[in-house]
């Protein structure tokens, strides 16, 4: 009697579980609700507005499939997601320099992918002028995916999966560069992070601790000249006083503009989700936030600095550094890091 009741209870639980699972459905499912987006409160109007590339569930699904597919690399070993990991705000945790096919090491640290719709240039040197053409770099770079466009298009055409995905997104099975790039932009464009504790605090949904508030005030005094809210970057370029790496010989922005005054200037990075995007700096030379703060603090004694914004930082006491780190951690947006839309389930 007891046994059969337990069995019944088990069965019921199991049935309920099944029902729930079928209600939740395939975790990869994307509906129009999932791709609806709006400019978060406090953000300016976006630079990239999906003009000529209207977002659709099928377009997003295609972009996500491409982003997670190693087929995009010459030897089918590396996908965009190999270097850009969801839980690291799409940076590459614990890798100083990018790792491409056959273990080839690149020359720069993988930046996070977030709020790209509000960016008017990409890469550490700002060499790329448009979100849609950005993937051409990793796709064809010998130290990254090392593939050619004609081969990539042929592989997609021959694959059992892509013609249907392109047809769903574009109405026919034609696979062209433009379609590949626009679908990728639908995925990368929707990587929007605006729900950190700091954002919730601004929206009066939560409060910051005493220490976090002290850190915020210090940050506004010393760091906002280059890292202002809401993106925690001016989107400009600067040299933040790092000694140049003699092996990498990376001249930064000068490579793009040719102007001597742009030597060693790099794109000022956003500090959203900075807690999880380590290592830091264009060459990933620092692993910990306290190392970064130690660097800025030491600049107080550097007499060669020309940027007044750096001279204004001054020495940071141990307490101030702890407060600043506490504040930087309020920029972590866990809804973004664990957003199921951005993950591909096998």
């Amino acid at each position: 009697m007891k046994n059969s009741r337990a069995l019944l209870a088990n069965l019921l639980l199991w049935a309920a579980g099944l029902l729930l699972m079928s209600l939740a459905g395939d975790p990869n499912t994307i509906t129009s609700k999932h791709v609806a987006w709006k400019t978060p409160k406090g953000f300016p109007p976006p630079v990239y507005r999906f003009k000529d590339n209207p977002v659709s569930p099928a377009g997003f699904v295609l972009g996500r499939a491409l982003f997670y597919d190693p087929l995009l690399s010459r030897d089918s070993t590396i996908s965009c997601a190999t270097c850009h990991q969801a839980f690291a705000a799409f940076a590459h945790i614990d890798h100083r320099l990018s790792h491409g096919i056959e273990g080839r090491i690149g020359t720069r640290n993988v930046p996070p992918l977030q709020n790209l719709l509000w960016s008017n240039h990409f890469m550490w040197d700002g060499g790329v002028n448009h979100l849609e053409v950005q993937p051409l770099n990793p796709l064809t770079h010998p130290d990254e995916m090392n593939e050619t466009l004609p081969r990539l298009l042929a592989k997609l055409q021959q694959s059992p999966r892509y013609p249907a995905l392109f047809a769903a997104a574009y109405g026919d099975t034609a696979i062209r560069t433009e379609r590949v790039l626009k679908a990728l932009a639908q995925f990368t464009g929707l990587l929007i992070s605006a729900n950190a504790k700091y954002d919730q605090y601004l929206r009066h949904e939560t409060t910051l601790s005493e220490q976090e508030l002290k850190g915020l005030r210090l940050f506004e005094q010393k760091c906002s000249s280059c890292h202002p809210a809401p993106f925690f970057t001016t989107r400009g370029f600067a040299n933040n006083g790092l000694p140049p790496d003699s092996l990498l010989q990376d001249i930064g922005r000068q490579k793009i503009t040719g102007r001597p005054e742009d030597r060693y200037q790099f794109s000022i990075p956003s500090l959203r989700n900075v807690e999880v995007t380590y290592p830091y700096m264009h060459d990933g030379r620092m692993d910990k936030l306290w190392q970064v703060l130690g660097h800025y603090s030491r600049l107080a004694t550097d007499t060669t600095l020309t940027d007044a914004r750096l001279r204004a930082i001054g020495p940071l006491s141990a307490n101030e550094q702890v407060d600043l780190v506490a504040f930087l951690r309020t920029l972590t947006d866990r809804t973004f890091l664990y957003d199921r839309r951005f993950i591909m389930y096998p």
Partner: protein
Amino acid sequence: MTKVCIPLFICLSCFFVFAKASPLATSRKGNNTGATVHRGGSELQLHFRHTVKDSTLQLNNVTYTNALGQPYILTKFKYYIGRIYLKSAHGRDYQSEEYFLIDEEEEGSKVIRLQHVPPGEYTAIGFLLGVDSLHNCSGAQSGALDPLNGMFWNWNTGYIFMKLEGRSPASPAPAHLLEYHIGGYAHGYRHMREVQLSLPGLLQIQPGAPAVVHQQRSR
């Protein structure tokens, strides 16, 4: 980039402007800019011929000599042409927004066919050699501007307007290569060129009346 002291004389020359009659010579007002869009009109063909000094350019198998007496051969010559317009006494009467990639290796690419050219009497033809700034900043594009055509720089994004490649024993580059890749749209690096050629006599485009004009242009 290696500096090579080899002045090359490439003449971009000879336009055969050929207006073919179109049976649908009707025009209608279109779009909100108020411009007249001609659905009928004529087809205008532009034929491009490339010459070195006075002879027709031949890739790979002819050795040329420059003014310094240095021999060279050419293996590739490709460039963009866009925003073609026709001028009459009233101003620009016809403007195409399309881009074309002309490639010495592809016979078909050396004939540009413009459709729906309105009837009129034209005095000059103009175009952009290269790609305008807007199209350098517009993201993914298809057709002539598809990055698949190998005329796009990825790391410093923008189109390569012209590729001229070859070899010369006088070149200090690896394998004695000559490589001229010209592009750039940003301030201080604008390398597109406006070209306007006045036509010898009037080009009359009339339905049913073919016209041929030869235009020689050296660069």
